[in-house]
């Protein structure tokens, strides 16, 4: 059976690529510290020596649209083109090509359906910055095949928070039952408090530092039940209108398991959002 060697949850800040590659007067004053933190975080994946990456993210109205919006979608393709014109325009992100792991995609789809998740699938998924940002930060050599899993945290009606946790638990079971000798890491990206297109956007910090502190504690302690007790679809509007991306962090808590404390946690308070990085090693410390 496959081995789950790392579970990683991260924010996905699309400005990292531009900030980390900028030079001279264009380089922001926070870039060096940001790079240092990301490189330390990257080492937590490197140490796990994965063969394949299951990547949880969310399309930001790049390919998926309101005429046919899936709640949970699994990519099943030999390759994934990545990043879109408007991400290139606003974030300076490069065009990328990632390799797929179709056997694991097929297994997740078949077994996931049988486990009670009505998963959508795509044989031609162009992925966006929710998945390419963690490749850029955690695996810049882009040398591992991926299984992309998209969640809808963006276009109401959304699934309930508990459904994200349940899917996370199921993903772990599916990986650990996959008849393969591959070493699998799961990487999911989301947000803490975040406001986009609203009156609290682009402040000096995230719109709700108190929510961020609580959220980091929930994740760091694997405190799923406490988190579910405080978070609802309705309440997630309060810390910022884009905070529903936090449900992808909840999915990753489901992968890691109730009460599982993280092996690595770091945060970085940038303008308009709090960056947060978490790693669990299910088989024990690496």
């Amino acid at each position: 059976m496959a081995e789950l060697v790392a579970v990683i949850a991260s924010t996905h800040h699309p400005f990292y690529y531009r900030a980390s590659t900028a030079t001279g007067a264009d380089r922001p004053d926070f870039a060096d510290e940001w790079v240092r933190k990301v490189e330390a975080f990257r080492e937590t994946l490197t140490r796990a020596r994965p063969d394949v990456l299951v990547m949880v993210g969310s399309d930001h109205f790049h390919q998926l649209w309101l005429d046919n919006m899936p709640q949970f979608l699994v990519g099943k393709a030999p390759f994934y083109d990545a990043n879109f014109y408007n991400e290139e325009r606003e974030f300076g992100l490069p065009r990328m090509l990632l390799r797929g792991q179709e056997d694991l995609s097929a297994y997740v789809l078949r077994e996931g359906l049988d486990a009670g998740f009505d998963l959508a699938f795509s044989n031609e998924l162009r992925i966006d910055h929710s998945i390419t940002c963690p490749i850029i930060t955690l695996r810049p050599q882009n040398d591992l095949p991926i299984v992309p899993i998209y969640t809808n945290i963006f276009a109401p009606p959304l699934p309930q928070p508990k459904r994200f946790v349940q899917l996370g638990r199921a993903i772990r079971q599916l990986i650990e039952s996959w008849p393969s000798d591959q070493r699998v890491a799961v990487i999911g990206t989301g947000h803490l408090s975040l406001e986009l297109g609203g009156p609290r956007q682009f402040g000096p910090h995230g719109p709700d530092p108190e929510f961020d502190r609580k959220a980091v504690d929930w994740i760091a302690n694997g405190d799923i039940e406490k988190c579910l007790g405080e978070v609802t679809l309705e309440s997630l509007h309060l810390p910022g209108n884009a905070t529903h991306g936090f449900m992808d962090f909840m999915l990753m808590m489901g992968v890691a398991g109730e009460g599982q404390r993280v092996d690595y946690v770091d945060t970085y308070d940038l303008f308009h959002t709090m960056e947060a990085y978490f790693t669990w090693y299910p088989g024990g410390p690496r």
Partner: protein
Amino acid sequence: MSKYLLDKFLFTVDRDPELVERYREDPAGTVAWWEETQANRILNCVGAESSTWLAFEEEERAALAGHDYVKLFELGAHPFLTLTLFIGMFERDHGPLEFQKEYARRLAHFSLPYPDIAT
């Protein structure tokens, strides 16, 4: 209210560099052309299978034609779509983050709960 159509306009313009420039330079003309020829296009179908019934209401048409992102927020357009398109059109005319912060200031009279964005 036709929030879906508002979002469809923002989505289809934001993903197309030529349309972004066209909407920036001629908002009223672009909105009129788009409603006439594009609004009923089903995005993953051939033209012969288009819809027949989609149209803006007057205040929606006026908000788009006026580049009025405050009104679009009030009408429940998806804030991510509105923001990214307007950054794409107007950030270039401002200093770093200047446009984004001004955008927030112009929305400062809104308090929670914000207008519903469900379509």
